[in-house]
């Protein structure tokens, strides 16, 4: 009984495996069946999680705006999203004239697939990791960017100028912010010596990487927000902007799938930030009771998701030229130098025998000071330019 409580998923897995082998099937086939079962369970659970996420977002943003949010359908309005989904299911699927049918219909599927695929490498507990590949971080980068492809297909096949423009703007933005994201992702790999997600979480056992490399954590968080297209970077699909961007010509559940993919992606990057920088499932007593690992993981991801919603409710939308300038002129150079400083600091700490924590804190403090100096110089030169401009004009 205690075994079940300690590690329910491994216990159920063993139970199913012995039962299926007892039925006379080959062991490899049994493994395949169990993998198929877990794939279907994870995909369904993750898609159903979206109901909770959308409800949580609506309630929390409402409270930030001093109103109540949905509270009619079910206790505290929990079933509001179900009602919305049922409404969407009965809407007519209008296909625009001249649309390229195969990419048009594939686009929502590809976008959802890329987000669901990210959950394959998410370590939920010390013993629960669906796919233990040793290139987890690079896998996250590549599969996450397949979502870009879905958006591109949606825009190009809709036979609509604004969908095309919106899709290309979105892709240009996602591509730009992928650069600092990739550079920031190199830092946990550096500090833990492996690309596998489980190894990165285990490398955070004494000290989470958020303490050793706060700038990299912040850069990863901000560039992931821009990748997902959440506020304050949601210029490209806000209703008052380029008419909802790449999903103008989608109706019914096809549009619903884009919506689901966006919310799920926001939670997925919260979970990724929690895993890569906050320590994932690590916490007290996790070795004795692996189930606690899942609890810590959920708590940490929820905290980061709350910060995501908090940011959405607090900041105004940024203009697209400001977004691009922010990325190329501020975030990417800081990410590059952060990577250089972290690499040199870690090696110096090991070679000279200094305390790892203090060296990294010192390196990050140095980077912050240099960044503030550079910003100060830039601000001063911009101010003198502005004043000379107004004096002359």
């Amino acid at each position: 009984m205690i075994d079940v409580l300690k590690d329910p998923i491994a216990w159920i897995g063993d139970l199913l495996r012995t039962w299926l082998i007892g039925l006379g099937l080959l062991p490899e086939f049994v493994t395949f069946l169990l993998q198929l079962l877990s794939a279907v369970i994870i995909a369904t659970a993750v898609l159903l999680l979206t109901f909770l996420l959308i409800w949580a977002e609506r309630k929390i943003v409402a409270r930030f705006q001093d109103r109540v949010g949905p509270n009619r359908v079910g206790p505290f309005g929990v079933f509001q999203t179900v009602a919305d989904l049922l409404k969407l299911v009965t809407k007519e699927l209008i296909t625009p004239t001249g649309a390229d049918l195969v990419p048009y219909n594939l686009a929502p599927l590809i976008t959802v697939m890329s987000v669901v695929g990210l959950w394959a490498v998410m370590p939920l507990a010390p013993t629960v990791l669906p796919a233990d590949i040793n290139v987890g971080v690079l896998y996250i980068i590549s599969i996450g960017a397949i979502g870009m492809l879905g958006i591109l297909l949606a825009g190009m096949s809709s036979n609509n100028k604004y969908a095309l423009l919106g899709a290309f703007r979105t892709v240009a933005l996602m591509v730009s912010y992928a650069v600092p994201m990739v550079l920031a992702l190199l830092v946990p790999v550096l500090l833990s010596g492996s690309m596998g997600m489980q190894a990165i979480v285990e490398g955070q056992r004494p000290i989470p990487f958020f303490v050793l490399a706060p700038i990299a954590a912040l850069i990863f968080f901000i560039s992931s927000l821009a990748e997902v297209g959440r506020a304050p970077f949601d210029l490209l699909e806000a209703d008052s902007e380029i008419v909802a961007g790449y999903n103008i010509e989608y109706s019914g559940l096809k549009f619903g799938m884009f919506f689901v993919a966006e919310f799920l992606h926001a939670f997925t990057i919260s979970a990724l930030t929690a895993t890569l920088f906050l320590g994932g499932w690590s916490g007290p007593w996790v070795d004795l009771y692996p189930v606690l690992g899942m609890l810590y993981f959920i708590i940490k991801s929820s905290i980061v998701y709350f910060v995501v919603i908090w940011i959405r409710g607090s900041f105004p939308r940024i203009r697209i030229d400001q977004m691009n300038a922010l990325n190329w002129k501020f975030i990417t150079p800081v990410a590059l130098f952060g990577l250089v400083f972290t690499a040199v600091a870690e090696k110096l700490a090991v070679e000279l025998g200094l305390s790892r924590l203090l060296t990294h804190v010192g390196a990050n403090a140095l980077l912050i000071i240099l960044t503030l100096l550079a910003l100060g110089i830039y601000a001063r030169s911009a101010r003198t330019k502005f004043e000379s401009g107004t004096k002359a004009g």
Partner: protein
Amino acid sequence: MLSLLQIAFLVAAFLTIVSAIMVVTTPSMVHAALWLILTLAGVAVLFLLLNAGFLAVVQIAVYIDAIAIMIIIVVMLTKGATRQRIRQVNKTWWGGAIAALILFAGLIALFTQTPALAVNAPALAMSQEALLEDLGMALVDVNRYIIPFEVASVLLLAALIGSIMVARPLVRGKDEEVEA
């Protein structure tokens, strides 16, 4: 009786070849770019079947996520790209097909005579983790691949500068004076 690995290889290879043929024969440029993405994904699956997980993910991250998207953007930069519907094959297509078949037969003859090529995925000398670490060490080891490593960065820099020089009039406007 074919093993599971062989069946998977045949399916992946067939899909890759069909997508590659569609890339060169489809009349629309945009469709060609989309078939190219499928071809590159097929190549990634082939890498996986050869036990090269790192290379498969690199293939997706570099080719599909960066290069294919750049190709699509470049296609859209040309005027009237989506309207073009050009027939891609001319009257002498059978000559090209015969040349390709002869080349294919020659390559098969060559490969089957090499004893080192096995039918299954080769057994690797080290575990995947150790291989990746070895690759990292090899890239910066003075006796091994340090020079290609640094030259690669200079090559990328040269490509970046060259493309910026070419694309500058596009971004800054053709009527502006272009400084060197």
